[in-house]
Structure formats: C-alpha cells, structure tokens
C-alpha cells in the first residue's frame, strides 16, 4: 500500500489544477532530439500553419502533474493512458489543463486512482481530453 498517498485520503470528485505552461520552440527541439523524431511538422511547417508540438507532448505527464498539486506522487506509476486530440498542440500559447480525481480502486492488491483532465489553450480552444489510470505504488496492499 502507498504510504505517500493513503488510499483513504483520496477524495473522488476532487478538482485538480489548473496547471499552466507554454510549450516553446526549444522544448519541441529537445523532444525531436530525445525521441529522434525530426518530423518537419514540429520543426518547420505543418498543415495547420506553422510548426506544432507533437500531439502526445506531455500527454501522459499532465495527469501526474495534476495529482501532484494535492498529493505526493513520487512513488506512482502510470498503467493506462487515454487521449483524444481535438486540435493541434500550439507552440507559444499558454496551455491550461484542468482535471478531476474521477475514481479510485484496488485491483489485484494494487491501489489506483483515475484522473480525467482537459487541456485548452489561452483562447479557450480545446486541445486534448485525457484519462490516466495511475498506480499509487508498486507495493501490494495487505489487508
């Protein structure tokens, strides 16, 4: 069981965030180097008018970041991640992600939480809707 996030302390329905950040050109360049994915849509031009960030950029990280606004997440581990992409992820715009702690459950002795969240840009354009299932730790619950 998780000592960092006591299962009983988790409040289903709790609002998480918002978290805000801006993806800059240098972030995308770092991504293309680390992932060895020099897609020209990220570096030069795209069908959307100018370069964009990869659609899954930080996609699986924002759920953890939201959870970390209320809980100690350092021992957590992602087990399932889901995303729907509504608009390209813009470079240079402020991105706002709001979430909710949608569920908690125990399966095969491991404790999990479900975080649902939506990203919009500074103009209110919906970018992504996401759901993360996060194990609170790899330690099994003994009850």
């Amino acid at each position, binding site marked *: 069981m998780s000592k*960092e996030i006591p299962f009983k302390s988790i409040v289903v329905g709790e609002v998480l965030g918002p978290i805000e950040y801006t993806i800059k050109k240098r972030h995308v360049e*770092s*991504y293309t180097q*680390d*992932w*060895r*994915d020099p*897609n020209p*849509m990220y570096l030069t031009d*795209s*069908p*959307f008018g100018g370069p*964009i960030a*990869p*659609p*899954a*950029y*930080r*996609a*699986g*990280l924002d759920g*953890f970041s939201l959870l970390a606004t209320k809980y100690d997440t*350092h*021992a*957590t*581990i*992602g*087990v*399932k*991640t*889901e*995303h*729907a*992409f*509504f*608009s*390209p992820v813009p470079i240079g715009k402020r991105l706002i992600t709001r979430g909710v702690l949608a569920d908690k459950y125990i399966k095969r002795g491991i404790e999990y939480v479900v975080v649902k969240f939506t990203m919009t840009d500074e103009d209110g354009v919906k970018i992504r809707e996401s759901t993360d299932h996060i194990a609170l*730790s*790899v330690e099994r619950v003994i009850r």
Partner: protein
Amino acid sequence: MIVSSEAVHVGSKLVATRHTAYQRSLVERTFLPKSIHRDDYTQSRGYAGALMSSYVLCGYMSEIMVNSFGEHYIKGGKISIKFFGGGVQNGDKITVKGTVSDKVKEDRGTRVVCDIWMEKNDGRKVVAGRASALLPNEG
C-alpha cells in the same frame, strides 16, 4: 502517409518505428527513494531497472500514428494504451508496430482504428492498445 479511408484496409500493417529508448531525466536527475525511476528500488521489486515514464512511452506510441496518418491523427485522433511486462529501461531497443483493426463511419469521416504495440528486442510486448485517426471519405 495514408490520406483517405479508402486507401487503407483492415489488416493493413503500419510502418514500424524503431528506437533506442531514451529519457533524459533518468540520466540527469536523482529521484527520491521508492521512485520507479530508481534502479535500486525497481530492481528490489523484480524489474530490470529504473522504469521510463509512461508519458515518454506514449510519445513513442503516438509517433507511428503521426507517421501513418499525419494531420488526421493530430486533429481527431485518439489513443488508449496500457503499460505492462516489466516496463522499458533507458537504452532498450524498442519497436512500435501496428495494424488496422477496424473502420468506423462517423459524421465527419471514417475512423480508422489500429491495434498498436511496443516490443522489446526479445519480442516481449511492454505497451499495447488502440489508436485511431479520422480520415475524410472520398467523393
């Protein structure tokens, strides 16, 4: 790149992507005890070593869809994946593969659904799920 739903058939294979897995923070940062990003903790729990973050693996899984469907995945696409099988460690040779598993008519086009998965060099799957792109109908 696949630009129309008529150009793709159930059973078609996507062009696989291959990488040496790399997460910069696993090299540059020090993590707290009981973090899955530490070799000592993960190895004490039966893993081969520090686990790469799920968001990094999600990036690798998404790449094959961008390469295959471009803007039709970037706007209107979906992805749902699970992580298992001991995870991925920095330096692992990984291959992401996919096949078209379904085509579903929607108001704005045809959703092309793909089974996608990541294998390590020994053929063991460590990530798997489904992703889709929304392609225009011809005519």
